[in-house]
């Protein structure tokens, strides 16, 4: 599964639960895997100054972002005994309750998947040029800041 060329991590819009279920299904032929760990980022209906977030609109510096995702992937494969790793991130509008980030790691044994997944998610938050615009129900907006 290790792929030396940057792939396109981005999907237009939300990542559906069917897509995630199907991705899990596809790994059932890989019988050396004993443990999967999946992180999902979901858009929260945060209330800020009395206004409620209705959606986040994502933009990205796509070429650089895909390169960064690639570097994160390579470095995770180097650090951890992973069989598979998949990353998907939304572009465009994702409504509250919908999923905007899907990170999926698999390994023969469970001990590495926890550490690997956290490493990857933190690296994505810190290093990948993706920008979230929080759209409120009244159509005003503010720029999301990762904490």
């Amino acid at each position, binding site marked *: 599964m290790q792929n030396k060329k940057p792939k396109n991590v981005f999907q237009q819009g939300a990542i559906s639960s069917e897509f995630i279920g199907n991705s899990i299904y596809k790994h059932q032929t890989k019988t050396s895997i004993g443990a999967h760990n999946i992180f999902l980022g979901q858009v929260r209906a945060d209330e800020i100054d009395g206004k409620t977030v209705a959606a986040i609109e994502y933009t990205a510096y796509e070429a650089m972002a895909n390169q960064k995702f690639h570097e994160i992937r390579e470095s995770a494969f180097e650090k951890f005994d992973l069989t598979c790793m998949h990353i998907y*991130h939304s572009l465009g509008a994702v409504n509250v309750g919908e999923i905007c980030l899907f990170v999926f790691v698999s390994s023969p044994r469970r001990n590495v998947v926890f550490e690997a997944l956290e490493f990857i998610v933190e690296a994505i938050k810190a290093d990948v040029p*993706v920008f979230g615009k929080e759209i409120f129900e009244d159509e005003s907006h503010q720029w999301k800041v990762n904490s």
Partner: protein
Amino acid sequence: MRITLKYFGQIAEVTEKQEEQIDIEAQVIAELLELLYSKYEGLKSKDFQVAQNQELVINTAEITGAEIALLPPFSGG
């Protein structure tokens, strides 16, 4: 030297465009930023990093790249 500038997120809100090409004589990033601050007053109050050919660079870095991007705080995921 002709370079392509790319703006994202709240930076693009200030510049009111996502991309432009300009001819510059600036040698280092800091000089380019001076130019942009005078062109786009609102940039001065914004927090951003600079990427040259898709790698983050510091203000004293020499301009070598054809593509320079102004990147506001990352907020993916």
